[in-house]
């Protein structure tokens, strides 16, 4: 039997209203008063306006000799310069400066010549638009015709020309490529010998058929005879057509 159960009581079940404990008083530093006093005591009086009546110095603080003179502050010794990195003292023999060098240049004549030869300065281009002579530079104003005077004014810009040339070149290249491509897989031209032999063969066949046709009986009375005649006629016609085709065209292409 757990021991905590022994403390149970039905009266603990009665819901208790929760008592909200009052808030603890706000924290106040125990040094607050000291800080206050300190501030009050340290505060220097008459800082802004000065004394209403300047107090007289005490007899012990009498004016001493040179008291009012300006004194330089004591020189501050840094003592931080490292002895090792200090540059060496110049050598009296080696590092002796060159002495006695003198120029022969005649500065007076030289200046006179320079001035005579100088190109005169161009006058400033200014625009004056008021009576009082208020002026402003003409060039950035946009009033002087600048772009019309340009060399390439009105001409087609080079980039457009270049682009056009580029397209033309690309087109030509493409056409050349296509031609090449077609040539590769293109139709074969029938050679003359081949053509001739085919033609001869056809003619020979035609001759044979013609001979058979000529030797047909005069009276065509039965169906087989009629059929044979029609067949021969048809074959001859086909051969004539082929011969005609071969004879009529100079070049004959063969698709393999």
């Amino acid at each position, binding site marked *: *039997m757990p021991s905590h*159960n022994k403390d149970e*009581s*039905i*009266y603990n*079940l*009665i819901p208790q209203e929760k008592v909200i404990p009052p808030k603890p008083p706000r924290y106040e530093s125990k040094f607050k008063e000291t800080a206050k006093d300190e501030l009050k005591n340290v505060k220097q009086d008459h800082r802004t306006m000065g004394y209403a009546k300047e107090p007289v110095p005490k007899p012990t603080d009498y004016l001493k000799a040179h008291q009012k003179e300006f004194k330089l502050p004591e020189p501050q010794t840094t003592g931080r310069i490292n002895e090792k990195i200090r540059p060496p003292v110049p050598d009296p023999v080696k590092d002796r400066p060159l002495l006695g060098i003198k120029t022969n240049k005649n500065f007076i004549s030289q200046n006179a010549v320079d001035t005579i030869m100088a190109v005169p300065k161009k006058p400033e281009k200014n625009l004056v638009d008021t009576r009082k002579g208020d002026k402003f530079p003409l060039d950035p104003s946009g009033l002087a015709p600048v772009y019309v005077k340009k060399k390439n004014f009105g001409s087609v810009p080079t980039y457009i020309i270049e682009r056009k040339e580029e397209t033309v070149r690309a087109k030509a290249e493409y056409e050349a490529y296509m031609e090449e491509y077609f040539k590769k897989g293109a139709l074969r031209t029938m050679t003359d010998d081949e053509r001739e032999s085919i033609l001869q063969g056809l003619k020979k066949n035609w001759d044979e058929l013609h001979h058979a046709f000529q030797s047909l009986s005069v009276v065509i009375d039965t169906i087989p005879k009629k059929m044979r005649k029609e067949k021969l006629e048809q074959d001859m016609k086909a051969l004539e057509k082929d011969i005609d085709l071969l004879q009529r065209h100079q070049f004959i292409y063969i698709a393999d």
Partner: protein
Amino acid sequence: MSNVETLELQSAIGFEGKVPNGLRIHPDRMHMIYAIGCNLVIENLQTRKQEFLIGHNNNVSCIAVSKSGRFIASGQVTYMGFKADIIIWDFASRQLYARLVLHKVKVQDLAFSPNDAYLFSLGGQDDGSVVVWNVATKESICGSQAQHKSSGITYCLAASRNNDNLFFTAGNNTLRIWELDLPNRKIRPLDVNLGQTKRIVKTISSSDTEDVFFCGSTTGDILQIGYQGQFKAIGPEKNKFSLGVTALQCLKNGDILAGSGDGKVFLLAPLTFKPKKTAECDAEVTSLALRGDGHMFFVGTAKSQIYKIQLSEWKQELLNTCHNSVINDIAFPFGTSELFATCSFEDIRVWHSASSQELLRIKVPNKTCTSIVFSRDGTSIISGWDDGKIRAFYPESGKLMYVINDAHQRGVTSLAITSDCRRIISGGGEGQVRVWNIRPDSQTLEATMKEHKNAVVQIKINKSDSECLSASLDGTCIIWDLKRFKRSQVLFANTLFQCIAYHPEEFHILTGGSDRKIAYWESYDGAQIRELEASKSGTINGLDIDATGEVESVGFGHGGEVKKVKICPNNRVIVSVGDDGSILRWRLSSA
């Protein structure tokens, strides 16, 4: 008893979960309406303040709220051969608007027409009729038999969504669409042809958006029927809802909420009736009530629980629980009225009186607690059970402290504890009164007193712990001497004693029993002093006496039997418990 005051009902703990659709939400979205016994309770959902509509003389069997929210109608059950009332309440004034009496024995279901013009009512199995009432004139227009003679009982009724003259009834093998012909004062039924399907419809709900209504069957499927009697759909095809569809509600977007007999709530897709979402409750879902358009809904179960579910988040919250079977006993801890304990089948609950909140629940499965007492020092709850054991529990954790096995042969029926908490006196079903010595680590039988021939129903100990009273169903009450463990007096009467009490001065004894009389007895020699007829109708089950010993008022509220009454220790409130599992608190007017 001629000019008795009526007791004012202060609060009630309970919910009649077995009433189909017994939980409703008023259209103002602020109030929940349900039944406890024969009262209707209007509870504010936010402040949880309860108001009572008292008017029925027996258990409420159905509730309807009109669409506008102006009226509430409730029907009741009554005894065989009597007429059952329907009461229309005016919601605004919380007053009775009309009492309509026509149905016999039970009002099965009620529905208002959409514009509050008519009230449709359906009688129970022994009545079997449908009646249309004019709400304005408070009179019946016409009635008819609810079903063919060949078909079974009609269980439910619903009104159409927009037509005042149209309503639907359904039940065992019957599904009818009724049309009211007002000039001829007739209602004409149209039987819906269901073809081969045969169903027992237990719940019906008409859609708010379409001209259709839905019927939930005991088979576990839902039927969709058009207003012209077209049988449109039945589903789901597979996985039917187990133990039947017991509650239905249509939502605005066409979805359907369904509750099943195994305690599940489903959100169903239209037409296919396939579940989209599922929530689980503890027991059969008997009512589904939408708040407003259904963004939130409440589920009432047969085990008297109320759940709140948010539709969008599908979040479930248990709102209310209470006893759902007979409450056998009440006990107050000594000297405080703030707490009391009740006991019932399977559980003991400790309640906070002011807020009606449950503070502790002790469960012992499948056993019934018949009596309960607090020890005087408040360190234990001692209870007697029908399995013949006395169990003591720690009062805060609810853990078992000790068990006295086989305390009685036929169940412990009554208990009392002495003021020094050293002895328990118990009475059993076989009629023995036993005295137990209680020490921290052992409980021993001190004496057995065998005189009664039937169950001991109540035991009272006097203030000085020197003697005790026991009342038995054999028609005797015995005053026992607790020093010698012998009978000192016996009271005989031709009644089954149900309750007994000492007068505060302890020279009188009061008894109540099945003869409906309260008898006063001399405790010194057991002579009867006088008798009062206390009840006009039934057995006196409970009796308690306050410190001054003066009582006189009557309260109406419990549906069934009042099992016990107790006056709280500070004499302000009477607590009574009923066999329907409800706990009512009454303001004691003399205080």
